């Protein structure tokens, strides 16, 4: 049984259908890649899996760990072990990065964490991601640069340890060094947590150090093609033209 199983998923935003019946299956611990032209519906798929209320599922099912989560609320889906790294992380004035992660961690684990232990873990993860420690006490994402926001997403991934991480263009907007640091962070997640990855990307850098199990191409809200790692190279050479009917 797959960890994530999506069948015939149709999703509408403001009464406009964006996804027209997507199928996707990700096994525990596997690494899948989603590619597709701008506006194809990749982020929409991420938000829909996460149960974001704006994205209405009009048909099909999403199940996770054997449970139907099609109608589940976002917070419950997160607690079940799905994490979405946002393409555009949201600024949250008034709430510090540190207190946000601590609250979230207590929710997903259902346990109180000693402040001292938490701080130590957080500091270690921030160091691994080459983040300035002072960011822990800054308001979440407020005034962070594009790259810093992406790092803050991976920091949350490392702290929350979900069993499935959807990374929506986590690599875009990162400089060369940052791509390397973030890739290392993702590798660390794979190694320590053994979770599955669903990576939405337009580039290949982030995939270099990972064993990719499957590549899915989405065009115009539909599955256009599926294959192994070689599909990534094919797309890099020939573009998406070949899949557009």
């Amino acid at each position: 049984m797959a960890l994530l199983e999506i069948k015939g998923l149709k999703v509408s935003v403001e009464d406009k259908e964006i996804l027209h019946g997507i199928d996707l299956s990700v096994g525990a611990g596997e690494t899948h890649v989603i590619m597709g032209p701008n506006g194809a519906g990749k982020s929409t798929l991420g938000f829909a899996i996460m149960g974001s209320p704006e994205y209405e599922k009009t048909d099909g099912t999403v199940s996770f760990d054997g449970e139907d989560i099609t109608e589940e609320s976002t917070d419950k889906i997160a607690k079940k072990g799905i994490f979405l790294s946002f393409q555009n992380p949201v600024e949250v004035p008034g709430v510090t990065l540190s207190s946000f992660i601590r609250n979230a961690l207590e929710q997903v684990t259902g346990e109180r964490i000693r402040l001292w232990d938490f701080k130590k873990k957080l500091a270690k993860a921030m160091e691994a991601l080459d983040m300035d420690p002072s960011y822990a006490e800054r308001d979440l994402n407020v005034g962070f640069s594009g790259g810093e926001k992406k790092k803050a997403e991976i920091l949350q991934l490392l702290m929350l340890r979900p069993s499935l991480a959807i990374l929506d263009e986590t690599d875009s907007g990162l400089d060369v060094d940052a791509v390397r640091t973030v890739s290392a962070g993702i590798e660390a997640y794979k190694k320590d947590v053994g979770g599955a990855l669903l990576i939405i990307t337009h580039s290949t850098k982030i995939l270099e150090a990972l064993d990719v199990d499957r590549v899915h191409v989405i065009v115009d809200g539909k599955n256009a093609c599926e294959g192994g790692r070689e599909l990534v190279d094919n797309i890099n050479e020939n573009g998406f033209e070949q899949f557009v009917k």
Partner: protein
Amino acid sequence: MEKMYVNHLPCITWKWLKMNGVESSDLPVSASRITADVPSGWTVSDDTAAQGSDIAANSNAEIEKALFADKIVTGLGPDMDRLIKEADVPVLRLTASADEPLVIENIYKDGDSKLSAVEITIPDGVDAVVTEKFISEDVCSDGNAVCGFQTRLIIGKNASVKLDQVQKLAKNVVFYNDIGTFNAENGRFELVEVILAGGSTYFGSRSNLAGRESSLDIEMAYLVKGKEALDSNIAAFQRGKRTDAQIRVNGVLKDEAKKLTKATIDFKTGSTDSVGSETEDVLMMSDNVVNRTVPLILCTEESVEGVHGATLGRPSEEIMTYMMSRGLDKNQIYDIMEKARLDAAAAKIHDEQTRREIAEYLHPGEETE
């Protein structure tokens, strides 16, 4: 006195007729001597007689005249002075020293009807720190109490005072919290006001920015919940050249809370090159709250700069989705947002013990620094 008229708006408007001021007949009657460990460097005066007032509580002309005559007129206004005089409240008159901070803790019990007053002179060049706490013995009690407290601050040349106030009162307590300052040249008044709880609160703070380059900085945070009400009147009377008034209010309204904030920046003739800004940001956690804000910038001087802004609302859908995607439900998000506001103001309080008490109240059973 049967009734008291407080929190008079410095400019009468027809539009805001009902918000010009409030009349209240729930008045504290018994004089209460302040007990505080006055630090050794501070001096206590023998003169404890209250001054009273002969100004009409609702006359802006008379209030202005007094301010131009270098008097202190408090935020609640002249009726509070009269009440203090009538109750024969012994005023604690102190002269500050920079060495040690002063902490005044007022613990109120059910049935209390206490009225107290303190007047602190901050000599030229002295930087003083004062903490005032207004706390119900049992914050969960539903007993009644009506209490009042007045703080007058006479801030000398190049002197400053940091006043931190914390209010944590039970749900049926009526409380009058009154502040007035006179700022001489380059005299600075900094106020951190944290209102955590209280049945019906009248809060007023007026600063007479008489001296050149005198300034005030007010950071206020409140949580008004249940059937609680908060009526505030904050006024900066800017007379001196290059004076500066910064007023920031951050609040949370829940349940059936009622709140009115009046904040006035009043640039008088001669206040050339002065600046002032007032902002209020309110999180409204229920549809049944009453949120009213009257931001006023009055101006009889040309080369001044006044800014006001008010924002309100709930966390955006985007923020909600983002936070929920990390496992937090709606109520937890509201809770985090609301406490974050109070935490941010509380962090600015100088007295460590007081900071800890606030953290324990906001985050019971949770480890904090």
